[in-house]
């Protein structure tokens, strides 16, 4: 398996400490700040070189905001971001420019992220123009190389984004992100707009490029099967917080947080039969991040919520090797039986 063969160095390429991003909510006649939307609420994580860290969560969980904060596309409210031990959190635009070349992003929306007035060649070349001193000819050659690398034809370079399907546009975005030979890439739902057969091509391409160039990915997605396929470790986010983080195999085999368990149970798969016992399904919607529940944010949908969950916010605690979970059920302090053992409906997941 490629996962074992991959050369993951132990030194973190990126270290995020207690990062917070609060968006002010304005209201009233004078548009005063009347509250905060805690999109990212105290998250710490580190990513090693050559590794893929997957971030999963539903809409409103703050996963995209986290990606943007890490790349300094929006400023963090609090906390620090270290790129190879250099604190980049408060760097100015000019100072940050050399780092930008190494830290790129592939966006979710292939329609909004490409300038419709530029041809494919211009779009793909543009980062080189800003970041390098290559000659025009060299830039063009490199652009063609990357256009072909992402599965488009060299003659497509003279076309404009509107002439392409959503899937092909996303390939252009990927070519654009890769052309400066970055080390670290934040991929925000890079394949969610693509058809299955194309999605597989792109995922394979991303894996190949990772091995070839030693890339490090922060891979944000809502699709757990995609995240599982590409990630070495996975973090599960819920309302701005990480509720569970573990190596991919551990997370999918022994999910410990009730939310992770429910998330895994919700995915329709080919092998789960219609006649199988009903799986845990969460009731209700995700609460608004502008007004999250007190204590554990998941308690309003959690089948095991009890008194303590309302009062006390659980913090990430070690559950196993590289496995951390934020849940009151798991620290043994409560008289509530552990989720996976008590509830018959949950048995299936714990066995799996």
């Amino acid at each position, binding site marked *: 398996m490629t996962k074992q063969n991959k050369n993951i160095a132990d030194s973190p390429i990126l270290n995020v400490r207690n990062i917070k991003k609060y968006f002010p909510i304005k209201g009233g006649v004078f548009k005063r700040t009347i509250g905060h939307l805690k999109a990212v609420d105290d998250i710490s994580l580190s990513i090693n070189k050559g590794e893929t860290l997957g971030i999963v969560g539903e*809409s409103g969980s703050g996963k995209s905001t986290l990606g943007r904060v890490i790349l300094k596309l929006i400023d963090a409210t609090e906390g620090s971001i270290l790129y190879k031990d250099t604190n980049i959190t408060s760097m100015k635009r000019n100072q940050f420019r050399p780092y930008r070349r190494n830290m790129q992003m592939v966006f979710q929306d292939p329609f909004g992220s490409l300038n419709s007035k530029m041809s494919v060649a211009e779009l793909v070349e543009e980062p080189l123009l800003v970041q390098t001193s290559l000659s025009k000819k060299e830039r063009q050659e490199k652009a063609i190389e990357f256009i072909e690398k992402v599965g488009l034809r060299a003659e497509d370079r003279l076309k404009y984004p509107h002439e392409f399907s959503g899937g092909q546009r996303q390939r252009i975005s990927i070519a654009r992100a890769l052309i400066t030979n970055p080390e670290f890439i934040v991929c925000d739902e890079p394949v969610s707009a693509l058809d299955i057969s194309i999605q*597989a091509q792109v995922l394979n391409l991303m894996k190949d490029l990772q091995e070839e160039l030693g890339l490090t990915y922060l891979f944000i997605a809502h699709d757990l099967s995609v995240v599982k396929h590409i990630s070495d470790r996975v973090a599960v986010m819920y309302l701005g917080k990480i509720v569970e983080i573990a190596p991919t195999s551990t997370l*999918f085999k022994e999910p410990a947080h009730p939310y992770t368990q429910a998330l895994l149970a919700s995915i329709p798969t080919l092998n789960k039969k219609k006649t199988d016992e009903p799986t845990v399904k969460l009731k209700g919607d995700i609460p608004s991040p502008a007004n999250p529940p007190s204590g554990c944010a998941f308690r309003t949908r959690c089948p095991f919520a009890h008194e303590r969950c309302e009062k006390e916010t659980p913090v990430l605690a070690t559950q196993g090797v590289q496995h951390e979970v934020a849940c009151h059920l798991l620290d043994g302090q409560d008289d509530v039986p552990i989720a996976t053992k008590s509830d018959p409906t949950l048995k299936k997941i714990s066995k799996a």
Partner: protein
Amino acid sequence: MIQQDVLQVDNLKTYFHLEEGRTAKAVDDISFKISPGETVALVGESGSGKSISALSIMQLINKPGRIEGGKITLNGEEITNYNAKQMTKIRGNDIAMIFQEPMTALNPVFTIGNQITEIIRKHKKMNKQEAHQHAVDLLKLVGLSRAEEMMKEYPHQLSGGMRQRVMIAMAISCDPKLLIADEPTTALDVTIQAQILDLMKEMKERFEMALLLITHDVGVVSQYADRVMVMYGGQIVEESTVDVLLESPKHPYTQGLLASLPMVDKDVARLGTIKGTVPPAYDFPAGCRFSTRCPHVMEQCLSHNPSLSDIESEHKVRCHLYPSEVEE
């Protein structure tokens, strides 16, 4: 008495006449049947023609598109040549449709109550009060406990999952015999998707509807559908029961599609792929439409488009690898 099919589609063709004289054969000669209470999935990637097929059945094709031929029979009655007025009666009443994006399917300037009662009063003889009560009951039925308040709310005040529940309530408001759901959960989160799919299943059983489920998600198909049709290039390339199709897919496209799926309960180092991309509908290759991407392409594939033929009972494939007994 032999049970009558809810829907029968014969040789349906929907073409789009583009500029420069090009013709996009979005739906090209598809035929299928749906029995009462059955869930049939129509699977395919974007541009395969699955949504256009559904819109053609509803006769919601706009220029430059045109239904070029074929026959659509609903509950034994041919509706192909119905005029706009007759179709309005059928839509919502006999066939209801749920769309992918509930935000665009609902009108943002009218309240939820307004929009549901409008449909009810159009199709049923009810006064304002009765329609209101019926709407509240429906909203409760689809799991919206705040039904009374919600009647006065606007679509933007609801979450995506709630909007889709409203769409389902509207769809079942006139007891249709056929529900067409076009990617009903694609815009939703996975935990909400599970809720909505279960709700649709429950409603289908309760109201004895047949369901035509259009999706790209093979996982959804495996858990909710009885039969599945795979579309590629405006044509059905394989049709079978779900179990058979997933266990022994025969068409190279279906095989490629299943191999390219990442799965939560299976470890694969590398996903299978289908080379190339879907050809545009105005530029299909001569012969088999999959021939440009097929790993098993043969000489005859380049000149003759195979027909959809039975290879065993209830399993049809459009591929030269499986010669049918009756040669055309």
